């Protein structure tokens, strides 16, 4: 595996000096490859790299390879800012990709606007700016998205249990998660549910039981959590250990598939926009094969987000043609329709007004103890994004 990587790197190096500099599409990514949150972003970044490598091995786009420059920001905004200046000022990329904590968004967005280079969010929550009416230059392929997620989740809870329920809410003490859960509190009240005051957990927490105790003692029938995976799952586990027997729904981050199998709890629902690798669609097999061939660090079932970003970048560059500058890539991205090959419930469609997607599809999963496998509790539900 190592020799193969070196061979590839050498090949890339040769290409880079001989023809690559002029003949390659240059795109750049800043992401959390180290630091405490790396586990949630590094797999997606690896997925994107695998896609791009495979694309280049197949001859690139109309004979032009795609050069993906990857920089690490450890999830720190200052380093994200340094990276974006470098990608724009030195590497002269035609497209920037963010795969890091939401705190790195602001500096990268500011720089992208200045330089007129499109910026794609590919691993963390989509910012409000990509919803219609979308801001120019900002695009998002990530599955999870403020407001729509809570809407879909509450629809599911209502379909399962009606509105006469006490709803516990759990968030992590980061602005994005808090904002969404506080919005969900309002939405639930409008429906006539009885939401509790959100329980907000600080990121480094030794024991989740005290937080679970407040939720459990307030008599929650259902609990909804939209937060990084640690907070979602550990709040749930702490609740179960208190003897709480209600039902719990959380956003299906990239860890979800492995974790549903680990927890094996029928009261734990995961709502998400990605299909699971257990389905074993052709695209899943492709990702698995690519990961295996490259000796990837992370599990293939955590790479869907990166692969989807790869599909979209591929399509955008193809439609931008050659030679492509940032303006052409942006124009291509503003009118794009990408088949997600079953990784999502439907295509990713972008228009000048909508840089999120025209329709967002949600599925709900949970563990089925009898069959020893993950069940689809609710198949693709479509939400038009307006």
């Amino acid at each position: 595996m190592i020799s193969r990587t070196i061979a590839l790197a050498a090949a890339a190096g040769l290409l880079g000096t001989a023809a690559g500099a002029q003949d390659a599409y240059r795109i750049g990514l800043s992401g959390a490859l180290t630091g405490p949150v790396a586990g949630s972003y590094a797999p997606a970044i690896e997925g994107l790299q695998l896609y791009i490598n495979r694309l280049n091995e197949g001859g690139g786009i109309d004979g032009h390879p795609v050069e993906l420059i990857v920089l690490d920001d450890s999830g720190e905004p200052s380093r994200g800012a340094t990276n974006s200046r470098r990608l724009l000022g030195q590497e002269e990329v035609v497209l920037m990709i963010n795969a890091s904590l939401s705190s790195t968004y602001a500096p990268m967005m500011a720089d992208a606007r200045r330089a007129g280079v499109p910026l794609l969010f590919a691993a963390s929550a989509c910012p409000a700016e990509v919803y219609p009416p979308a801001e120019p230059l900002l695009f998002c392929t990530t599955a999870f998205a403020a407001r729509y997620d809570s809407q879909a989740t509450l629809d599911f809870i209502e379909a399962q249990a009606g509105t006469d329920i006490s709803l516990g809410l759990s968030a992590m003490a980061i602005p994005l998660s808090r904002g969404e859960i506080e919005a969900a509190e309002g939405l639930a009240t409008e429906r006539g549910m009885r939401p509790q005051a959100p329980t907000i957990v600080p990121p480094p927490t030794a024991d989740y039981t005290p937080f679970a105790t407040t939720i459990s003692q307030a008599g929650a029938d259902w609990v909804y959590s939209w937060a990084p995976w640690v907070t979602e799952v550990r709040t749930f586990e702490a609740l179960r250990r208190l003897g709480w027997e209600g039902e719990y729904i959380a956003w299906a981050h990239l860890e979800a598939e492995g974790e549903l199998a680990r927890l094996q709890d029928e009261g734990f629902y995961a709502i998400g926009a990605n299909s699971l690798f257990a389905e074993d669609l052709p695209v899943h097999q492709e990702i698995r094969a690519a990961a295996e061939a490259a000796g990837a660090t992370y599990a293939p079932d955590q790479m869907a987000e990166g692969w989807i970003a790869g599909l979209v970048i591929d399509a955008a560059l193809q439609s931008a043609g050659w030679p492509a500058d940032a303006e052409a890539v942006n124009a291509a991205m503003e009118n794009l329709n990408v088949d997600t090959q079953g990784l999502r419930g439907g295509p990713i469609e972008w228009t000048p007004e909508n840089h999120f997607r025209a329709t967002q599809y949600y599925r709900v999963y949970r563990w089925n103890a009898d069959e020893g496998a993950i069940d689809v509790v609710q198949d693709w539900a479509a939400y038009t994004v307006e």
Partner: protein
Amino acid sequence: MQLVANIIVLSAIYALISCGYVLIYRVSRVLNLAHGELMMVGAYLLLMTASFTSNPMVAIPVAAILSLTMGALVYLLLMRRMTGESVLAAILTTIALGILLRGLIVIFFSAAHQYPAVPLGIHSSSVQVLPGARISSLSLILVIVTALVYASLFAFLRLSRWGLRMRAAGQNPLLAAQRGINLHGIYAMVWAIAMFTGSVAGMLISLDAGLDQTLIMIGLKAFPAALVGGLDSLLGALIGSLIVAAAEVLLIQYVNPLLADVVPFLILIVMLVVRPWGLFGTREALDRV
């Protein structure tokens, strides 16, 4: 009742971690800010041994012995060279060690969230400990282990010959050295014990909650507990942990969970204004720095 159980579990976690800070500071006057990382390394050692054997009775002791060795090596290879340097330089060295360890862990184990409990076949179940109070079985073990660790540390420091030497080295290194006590040996031993207790905490936490780099931050959260009690007193670390944990649990329940992060430090400020050397710390500790 549940609140009481929550307070006891949380203070046991803090106490088991913070005794590492106290031991090293008490004996060698070094503030070890890599304690969180060393604790994480201990947990990853368990992950490593768990990949060789699925028997927890083998995997855990082997990992614990490895962590004991590593603690001594950290002193012998690195911290020994920092004797005689300024306090700040020694602290910075431990921080740099922490950065190095974080990088190494990602290289060897990746940044993914992993569960050492899975290969070992350990399942945490729910235990009724008091009427109306349940905790997880691993939390119960953690409380017991903490009690054992503290009991044996007290016994060791008071009664054994090595413990006596350790206390002597902490109180007056010059005099201790003149009396023929091998200071480097003592310091290596205390680093080994500190890493051992930290690793045990790391292992137990990661068996319950899984393992990734966020474990470091939990290590740092126990730091105020050590300070409230006074950095050079084991009893203080125990009481400090109890105070910090009680404040945290009660605030989460009755006031605002968001304060949980700030409150240990608020308690600390109040403590520093009233008794700058901590609850049980010694006054002279202040002028050593």
